[in-house]
């Protein structure tokens, strides 16, 4: 009981509740009573420490919160695919100008790139087009002829109902190589063809059945499949196996238009387009439609097949060497064709004048009509 009394006194003293007489009495007791003073001191220390403890504890908690908020990984929020709507709106409002610029730059870049790639490609194509294969696009010519007609007469020509005549989509030239109905032309003339007809200078037309193609040398061999076809008879020219000499006089017959056209020149190089050793360069003026025409020398030997010309050079035409024709025929005789193709060997044209040669020749040179609808 005594102790608790003392404790209450101490507590009240420290709280400042003692006044007047009580206070002076207590202070007097403190001075005299050593034990009381010691108790007071201890009491004070414990309560102070308790205060200190409490404050520090709460401070620690605060710091821990701050630390956790600032320096420790926050628990991950649920991530919606595009953030919330308001944030998106704000973002858009802030950045739409930048986004617009970025998008237009991106579009410009994409289309610019596509355009320039296209341009670059077409430049490449122009380069490739320096070599031109000489098959004739018939429709084109027909249209331009109509346009000319119209221009001359001044009104729509009511063309007379002609006998139904279809010139085909493309045309080229071909010539016979054996008596039983084999002909030669250029590969590019008959490439992609649905059906092929041949027509001679007198207008006689035959259908072609089989086509043997050799794309590498731009050659094709056709076989006539017509019951009415009587055969060519003996061919007047022979195929020359060896190479011809530079400067040799050469000529060709072909159908760059509806009628047969003669062209003459000389053998100007032993190699063809870009040094192609399988063909000659010749100085005969040739035109679309000449492709597949025979190239003959002065003695009437077949030395090549006209194939194309170089656009950016004057008077540079090319013809595949006859050696490759011979090679192709031999190969075909071995594996593809039922009966071997007998190439004409005898040459009946040697020594004859040019006009006599041509007269004999023209029956064996044909217009090749190609239909590919």
């Amino acid at each position, binding site marked *: 009981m005594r102790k608790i009394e003392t404790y*209450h006194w101490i507590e009240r003293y420290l709280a400042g509740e003692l006044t007047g007489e009580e206070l002076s009495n207590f202070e007097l007791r403190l001075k005299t009573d050593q034990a009381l003073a010691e108790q007071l001191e*201890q*009491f004070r220390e414990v309560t102070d420490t*308790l205060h200190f403890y*409490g404050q*520090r504890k709460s401070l*620690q908690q*605060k710091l821990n919160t701050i630390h956790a908020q600032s320096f420790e990984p926050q628990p991950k929020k649920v991530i919606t695919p595009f953030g919330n709507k308001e944030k998106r709106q704000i973002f858009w409002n802030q950045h739409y100008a930048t986004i617009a610029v970025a998008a237009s730059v991106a579009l410009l870049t994409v289309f610019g790139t596509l355009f320039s790639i296209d341009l670059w490609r077409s430049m490449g194509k122009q380069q490739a087009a320096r070599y031109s294969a000489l098959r004739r696009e018939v429709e084109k010519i027909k249209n331009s002829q109509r346009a000319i007609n119209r221009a001359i007469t001044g009104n729509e020509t009511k063309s007379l109902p002609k006998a139904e005549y279809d010139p085909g989509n493309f045309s080229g030239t071909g010539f016979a190589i054996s008596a039983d109905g084999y002909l030669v032309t250029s590969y590019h003339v008959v490439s992609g063809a649905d059906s092929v007809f041949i027509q001679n200078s007198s207008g006689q037309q035959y259908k072609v059945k089989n086509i043997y193609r050799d794309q590498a040398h731009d050659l094709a061999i056709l076989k006539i499949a017509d019951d009415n076809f009587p055969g060519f008879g003996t061919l007047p020219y022979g195929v020359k196996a060896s190479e011809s000499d530079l400067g040799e006089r050469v000529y060709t017959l072909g159908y760059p238009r509806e009628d047969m056209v003669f062209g003459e020149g000389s053998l100007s190089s032993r190699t063809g387009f870009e040094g192609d050793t399988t063909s000659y360069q010749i100085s005969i003026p040739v035109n679309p439609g000449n492709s597949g025409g025979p190239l003959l020398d002065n003695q009437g030997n077949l030395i090549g097949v006209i194939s194309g010309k170089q656009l950016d050079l004057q008077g540079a035409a090319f013809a595949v060497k006859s050696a490759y024709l011979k090679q192709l025929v031999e190969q075909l005789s071995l594996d593809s064709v039922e009966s071997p193709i007998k190439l004409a060997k005898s040459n009946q044209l040697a020594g004859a004048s040019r006009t006599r040669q041509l007269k004999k020749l023209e029956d064996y040179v044909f217009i090749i009509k190609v239909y590919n609808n």
Partner: protein
Amino acid sequence: MHKVLYFSDEALLAGIRNEEEAALAYLYKQHYPMILHFVQNNNGTDDEAKDIYQEAVIVFYEKVKDQNLELNCQIKTYLYSICRRLWLKRLALKNRFAGMITDSDTFIQVDEEVAELEENELKFKKMGEALVLLGEPCKTLIEDFYIQDLTMQSITEKFGYTNADNTKNQKYKCLMRLKKLFFTLYKTEISSS
């Protein structure tokens, strides 16, 4: 937490004196990376950095609030110096101190502060231990009265005592026990160290 910027040390000190939460948070965030860097560079972990940094901030904070800090350098330097000393001691305890640490900043002598800090730390620790040893319900009662500053009346109601005198008696008994426990723990620690 408000994002308030304290542009100078003076403003920050004033903020702490006014017990602004934001000031404390700002202080804490501003210098933690430096201490983290320092500790990591000297064989320490993130947790250790956090420990000593918090000690230093607490000391600083308490001193500022009690108005007994004579700061004649930057806050940054002060905190760094304290942390540096604390870290040296820790390393010594861990027997890993090779006599060299890599300093990342200038520092001042803080022997006095550290001594005081350690004494306070010891008191704090022992009081905590004493409270745990005291056990319930004494612990809560003492905490409510002396730390939370609740009135006798509300404590009486909370603990379901019949009247305030009863509570007073109970509190007296608890405090006596706490006093005994605390002084035993504290004194033995002082004499042993």
